[in-house]
């Protein structure tokens, strides 16, 4: 699994500042840091490789053109993911300009668990993953996306809400509902998971 280590907020905002001042290296750094994650995120919405690439290209070209007017987002990653998500939706559905994509419930999110990648000296985990996989497949796209952003991209609820264009409360709700669903659809004798998910219900 590829994870990006951008946890030094100072470096990040310094790089952002340089980028805004027209520093080409800083701009390339942005691309190098985020393009792989963005591509992966995009591939969950569509299997059209060229479309995803086009959206990444538009996103970065747009960023560069507007560099003097873009603000200083608190979380650059969120900002990019949000803009990228918007671009993907726009391209995929050819939304008209005044229709906001938040209203669209009708999209796909094809996140699949990587079961082969589970720890091999732990058979039970393989089992747990398998069950999660089945349950995950039955969630709505929105629920899957929230789980993906939480566990793959390690975003907080606040950040998930920002990227998906929903309120924080709605973010909690989606997550709680998904996990609730998972709880009801997993084998009941898996005490560990049940225990975990029962507690997650507190988020409601």
């Amino acid at each position: 699994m590829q994870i990006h280590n951008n946890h030094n907020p100072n470096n990040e905002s310094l790089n952002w500042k340089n980028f805004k001042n027209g520093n080409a290296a800083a701009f390339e750094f942005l691309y190098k840091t985020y393009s792989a994650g963005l591509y992966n995120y995009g591939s969950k919405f569509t299997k059209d490789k060229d479309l995803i690439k086009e959206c990444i290209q538009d996103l970065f070209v747009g960023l560069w053109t507007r560099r003097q007017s873009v603000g200083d987002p608190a979380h650059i990653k969120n900002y990019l993911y949000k803009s990228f998500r918007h671009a993907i939706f726009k391209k995929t559905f050819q939304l008209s300009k005044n229709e906001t994509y938040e209203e669209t419930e009708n999209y796909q999110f094809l996140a699949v668990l990587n079961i082969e990648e589970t720890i091999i000296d732990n058979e039970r985990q393989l089992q747990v993953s398998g069950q999660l996989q089945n349950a995950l497949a039955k969630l709505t796209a929105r629920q899957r996306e929230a789980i993906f952003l939480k566990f793959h991209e390690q975003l907080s609820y606040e950040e998930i809400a920002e990227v998906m264009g929903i309120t924080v409360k709605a973010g909690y709700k989606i997550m709680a509902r998904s996990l609730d669903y998972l709880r009801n659809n997993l084998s009941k004798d898996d005490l560990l998971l049940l225990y975990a998910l029962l507690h997650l219900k507190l988020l409601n």
Partner: protein
Amino acid sequence: MKKQLSDYKAYTLADLINDETFILWVLQPDKTAELFWQDVRNTYPTLDPLIADAREIVLSIRFETDALDATEQKQLWQNIAAKTVSVKKTVKISPIWYRYAAAAVVVGILFCISILYSVNQKVNIETPYGQLRNITLPDGSMVTLNANSQIKYDKNWNKNEIREVWISGEAFLKVNHLHKTGEIQNHERFIVHTGAVNVEVLGTSFNVNDRRGRTEIALLEGKISLDLKTGETKPLILAPGDIAEYANGKLLKKSINVAEYASWKDGKLYFRNVPVGKIFDYFEDIYGYKVVVDDPKILEKRLSGALSAKDRDVLFKAIGVTLNINITPKAATHELIVTSK
């Protein structure tokens, strides 16, 4: 959002699973996170079983990733650059005489080194297949040499000279930090030479793997600077958690879980999404087998997990069961026969 230690007192399993810092620690532990969670565990030892369970759950939730290959990634950048930051570059070619001069200098240096060699006595330690060895260097720094590896250094380390070792194969080093204040003196420096890369160290622990024309350096603590022998590029500075890889003439930095890179020294092997072919390469390097596979498709599978490397047979068996293959060592021919079931 930084939490107080006391926040963890009443933590439940659900709190752990929902805690970004926890998820981060499980998925990509670094030094800071390791220390922090160690602190939490020391303060609230009752959390241990919860932490173990939460880890398991977080590790179960792994999504498949889709990625562009390196060429596509580069091409896409070139498209973007062409519309934004690209400036026409002119390629500078150094004149022929310049290269001859450089070659002459290299020959000169080699000559000097060979004279130095004959003066100072060298220690040369090689490990056979399947055996590790711990070595204490003249300054008290510790080296764990993996199987089928070699280390060379001067028997006596002069007060005014740089500490230098030459390594091929794989080694884990814990270097004594001699530099306290003021300007760095020669003897406070420590350099590891591998096939293509020089590693300059200031008190640190790291793993060097120099095999099959590739060099990988994983830094666990401290700070090191990497320099290509060719001197073509600027030195690359590594921070803890960084891994540098030298292959095909290029030195690149990537961030992965470095603790896993040096796990062999504690008799464990960690794989994270590693192609099986690479694991077999490792067995060839470490145990000296020639791996013979009946179905090359096996080599493309990927494996993640933690295994004990102490017992070779158990190790082969565990991997065999996971991949549904048979792994049989053949002592007579020194082959490792791999067949699909």
